[in-house]
């Protein structure tokens, strides 16, 4: 294959990968710490996209829309945790699946009521509509490069948050000994609420960044959710490091599958990847809390 095409497609794969990482990070964080399987994570992605699109229309600025929508998804996440999720920590995964599935139905219908059944589109932010010349003759959309950069930046910030801050220390402590952390006087309930909010905001951020390159419609989070689940299973449930590696792998494998293979096979590539990895390592690439 042409090396320049390889580069461009590699970047496309990276871009899909970092988007998946933003989704998978929240999912795996919530699972690793609270042992909660949250299928409604895709709904936060959708809410992020809708809120950003609608705020962009009202304010006229992409950046302002982002800055307002991000705390909004954080808040929605905290409300969901306080109303429903809190009651699910002691339940088995089956109940968690059912409740979060019901939340998906609720949110998909909610956006249809608020924003109507038609698909919405978001304008690219000013100044990012152009292309960047990577090499003479090889151009790449500037916005997609920004997505890659922003995604990697968020990954770094997340690492610093969890490994270097007091909040991160409490999160790690809560993951290994919930009762002990509570006994030491930490408000574990509030900690979980905040953590769930962070996860929702990450998914929301992925949705906001995807807004200008996808059509925004009810149910848009559902297919991304499945990809994110594949990612966290490959990476190892609860491992953020695993999620990063697995999301890049899945992003690149999917992108190259689509250009090299017939469509029926291409859509199955990442599932083959998952099956192969699980056959060798049922616990995923990294085991939990890595």
């Amino acid at each position: 294959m042409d090396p320049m095409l390889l580069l461009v497609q590699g970047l496309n794969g990276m871009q899909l990968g970092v988007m998946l990482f933003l989704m998978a990070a929240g999912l795996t964080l919530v699972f690793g710490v609270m042992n909660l399987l949250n299928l409604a994570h895709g709904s936060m992605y959708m809410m992020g996209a809708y809120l950003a699109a609608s705020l962009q229309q009202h304010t006229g600025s992409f950046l302002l829309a982002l800055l307002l929508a991000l705390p909004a998804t954080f808040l929605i996440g905290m409300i969901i945790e306080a109303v429903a999720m809190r009651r699910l920590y002691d339940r088995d995964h089956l109940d968690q699946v059912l409740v979060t599935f019901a939340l998906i139905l609720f949110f998909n219908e909610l956006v249809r009521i608020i924003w109507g059944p038609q698909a919405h589109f978001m304008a690219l932010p000013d100044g990012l509509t152009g292309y960047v010349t990577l090499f003479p003759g090889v151009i790449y959309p500037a916005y997609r490069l920004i997505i890659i950069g922003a995604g990697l930046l968020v990954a770094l910030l997340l690492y610093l948050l969890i490994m270097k801050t007091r909040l991160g220390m409490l999160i790690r402590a809560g993951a290994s000994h919930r009762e002990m952390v509570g006994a030491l006087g930490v408000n574990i309930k509030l900690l979980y609420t905040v953590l769930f909010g962070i996860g929702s905001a990450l998914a929301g951020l992925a949705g906001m960044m995807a807004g200008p390159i996808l059509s925004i419609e009810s149910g848009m989070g559902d297919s991304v959710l499945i990809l994110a689940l594949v990612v966290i299973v490959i990476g190892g449930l609860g491992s953020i490091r695993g999620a990063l590696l697995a999301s890049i792998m899945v992003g690149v494998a999917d992108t190259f599958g689509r250009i090299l293979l017939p469509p029926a096979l291409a859509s199955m590539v990442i599932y083959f990847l998952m099956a192969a990895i699980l056959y060798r390592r049922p616990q995923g690439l990294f085991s939990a809390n890595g």
Partner: protein
Amino acid sequence: MADSGYFDLRSAVLLLLLAALAVIPLFGDIFYTRLFTRIMIYAMAALSLDLILGFGGMVSLGHAAFLGVGAYTVGILSLWGVQSAFLSWPLAMLFSMLIALVIGAISLRVSGVSFIMITLAFAQMLYYCFISLKGYGGSDGMTLAGRSSLAGLLDISRHGTFYYLVLCILLLILFAANRLVHSRFGMAIQGIRDNERRMLSLGFPTFRYKLVCFVFAAGIAGLAGALMANQSLYVGPALMHWKQSAEILVMVILGGMRSLAGPILGALGLLLAEEILSNYTEHWMIILGPFLIIVVLCGRKGIYGMLKGANDHD
């Protein structure tokens, strides 16, 4: 419960339900005949999922894949000119079971939440695979020319006849599942659900037992899929979308898992609720969602579990 021995609410409800199902087409309203045909087919799918979920303890979120494979088998064979139900329905079951054998052999290596996600992922893989098969309708699916033929024995293009055939198959499945659950195999599979390590120590090849249970249930789901293709005369990838799997899961939980009557009541409850709510508002899901949350959070015995049975000692 001292007084419940005289009056067994569960048996009463079941008998009433079966009696009602037996007379519905006699009212002659095509709408209800078709609605209840659909409900009974979903009841089969839910019943088969309960064998895995309730009795086997395996939380599968990809059960709709087998429905889809069964439906597509009938659809594709019909496109090739094979209309005979005696050929296409058993093949629908066979293909579903073969695919379940592969999916099960890989998925059953893990348990718990990984199992949920892997069954989900495999079902989505089939979903995307059938979407990209443009020759068989792609994402639009395909319309069938007519129902399968039963070699002149029965004319199931008539809604009433098809209804009674589906009812008979449902009763047969109920009978077979009842025998299975109370057989040595059924006892073993429930033992594995409760304590796999102990069953393993007792010398049961637990992996093989779980796999057989998984494959058997997929066969029933495949048959339900074949019937579904006949009922709606349409086969599309939406049949195997993961939301379909989740909906069947909801039926089992709503009706009450670990019982055979529960999934039937659940299918009846959910589909009737959908039907009734959608008469009032097109946004009925905004009501159904929170309702499901309350059902799961408040009690999980389901409809059947709330009825008191003769053998209850609580």
